C-alpha cells in the first residue's frame, strides 16, 4: 500500500468511522495527494458529510448593508478604503434590505446574512441593523445572521438581544500567514470576537479564503485553527482577485487544488456546515458547484455576493434537486 492510500485509509477510520477530524499534519498529507487520488478523496469527504451532517443543504443569501470605504487593509478585499478599488461607498436603506431578504427567502433559503464593510459596528450601524431586522421580521420568515466586523462584549449582547441567530467573522487566513494578508488588525483580535460570539450562545460562522499565495501547510493550518474554534458554519472562499487590491494580480486557484481544499476542510471538520462562499464560479467554473456538493460541501450562498455576481440562483436550486439534496428547512435550523 502506498503512503497516499494510507492517509485516505486513516481518514476513513478516524473521520468517517469515529467523527474525529484530521489533525493539521494529516491535512497536509491530504492536500498533497496527487490528482489521481482526487476522486477517492472527494468520495470520502462526501461520505463523511452524509454520515455526520445528512443530505440537506443549507441555503443562504447575503447582502451588503454598508459597502466600501472600510478602514482595514485586508489585501483581498475590494471594499477597503486603502486601495484604489473602483467600488464606491454605499449604504442600503431598510426597504432594499427587506427586498434582499425577500429575494433570498423566495429561493427556499433559511439564512439571510447582513454584512457591513467596517472594522466593527458603531452606533449608527447597529441602529440600522436593528431597524433592518425589525422590518425583515415583519415581512419575511428567515433566520437573520450578521457580519459586522470585530465586536465588543456590549455589542455582542446587543446582537443577541436583537435575535441575531448567527454571527460571521472569518479568520481569513492561517495565523502564520495573517500578517501578509492584513496589517490593520491582528489574528488574535479576530479570534477574540469569535470567542465572544460563541460564549454568548450565538451560532458562530467562521471561515476564510484560500488561494491568496499561502502554502499548502498554511492551508492545513487554517483548517486546523478553524476546527479549534468549532464553528457551526465554515464559509470557504476562493480568492477572486479584485482590481486595485494588493492581491489583484494573483492567479486564480486551480480547480483540483480548490476541490482538494474542500475535501480537506470537510475531513478537518466532519460535523460543521461547510459553505461554498465567494469565488467558486471563477475557480471551479460550471462543474465546480456539483463537484463540491459531492465532495464535502453542504451549504451554498445563492444569488449575488456583496460586490460581485453569483451563478443564477435557479441553476443552484435545480442542481440540488437533481442531486436529491433537500434544502434545509427553516424550522430545522432554528
Amino acid at each position: 500500500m502506498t503512503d497516499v492510500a494510507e492517509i485516505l485509509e486513516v481518514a476513513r477510520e478516524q473521520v468517517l468511522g469515529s467523527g474525529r477530524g484530521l489533525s493539521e499534519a494529516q491535512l497536509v498529507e491530504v492536500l498533497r495527494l496527487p490528482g489521481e487520488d482526487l476522486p477517492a478523496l472527494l468520495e470520502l469527504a462526501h461520505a463523511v458529510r452524509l454520515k455526520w451532517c445528512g443530505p440537506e443543504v443549507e441555503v443562504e443569501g447575503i447582502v451588503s448593508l454598508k459597502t466600501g470605504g472600510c478602514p482595514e487593509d485586508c489585501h483581498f478585499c475590494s471594499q477597503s478604503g486603502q486601495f484604489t478599488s473602483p467600488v464606491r461607498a454605499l449604504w442600503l436603506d431598510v426597504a432594499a434590505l427587506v427586498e434582499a431578504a425577500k429575494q433570498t427567502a423566495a429561493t427556499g433559503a433559511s439564512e439571510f446574512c447582513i454584512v457591513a464593510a467596517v472594522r466593527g459596528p458603531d452606533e449608527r450601524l447597529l441602529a440600522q441593523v436593528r431597524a433592518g431586522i425589525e422590518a425583515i421580521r415583519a415581512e419575511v420568515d428567515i433566520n437573520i445572521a450578521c457580519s459586522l466586523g470585530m465586536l465588543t462584549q456590549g455589542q455582542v449582547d446587543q446582537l443577541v438581544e436583537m435575535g441575531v441567530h448567527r454571527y460571521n467573522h472569518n479568520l481569513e487566513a492561517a495565523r502564520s500567514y495573517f500578517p501578509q494578508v492584513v496589517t490593520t488588525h491582528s489574528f488574535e483580535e479576530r479570534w477574540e470576537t469569535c470567542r465572544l460570539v460563541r460564549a454568548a450562545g450565538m451560532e458562530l460562522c467562521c471561515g476564510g479564503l484560500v488561494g491568496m499565495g499561502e502554502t499548502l501547510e498554511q492551508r492545513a493550518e487554517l483548517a486546523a485553527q478553524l476546527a479549534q474554534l468549532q464553528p457551526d458554519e465554515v464559509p470557504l472562499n476562493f480568492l477572486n482577485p479584485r482590481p486595485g487590491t494588493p492581491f489583484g494580480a494573483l492567479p486564480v486557484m486551480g480547480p483540483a487544488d480548490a476541490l482538494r481544499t474542500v475535501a480537506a476542510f470537510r475531513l478537518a471538520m466532519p460535523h460543521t456546515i461547510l459553505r461554498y462562499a465567494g469565488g467558486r464560479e471563477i475557480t471551479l467554473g460550471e462543474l465546480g458547484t456539483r463537484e463540491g456538493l459531492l465532495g464535502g460541501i453542504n451549504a451554498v450562498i445563492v444569488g449575488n455576493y456583496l460586490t460581485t455576481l453569483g451563478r443564477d440562483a435557479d441553476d443552484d436550486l435545480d442542481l440540488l434537486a437533481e442531486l436529491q439534496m433537500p434544502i434545509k428547512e427553516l424550522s430545522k435550523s432554528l
Partner: protein
Amino acid sequence: MTPWSDGAAAYCDRCGEPVCDRDHTECLAHREMEPPRYCPLCRRRMVVQVLPRRWSARCSVHGEA
C-alpha cells in the same frame, strides 16, 4: 449587450480605460460575474447596489447604466 456596443460609450465599464486604447475582451469576460463599475460615457465611478437577485449601477451625471 455591452454598454459601448451602441457606439456611444467611450470607456470600459469594468476598468474605466478608454475603449479604443486597448482590447477589453478580458474585461468583458469578467463582466459576466461583475456589475459595471465605471460610467461608459464619462468614466465616473458609479454607485453600484448588489442585491441577491438584481443589481443596479448609477452615474451621478448620466443616471442608471
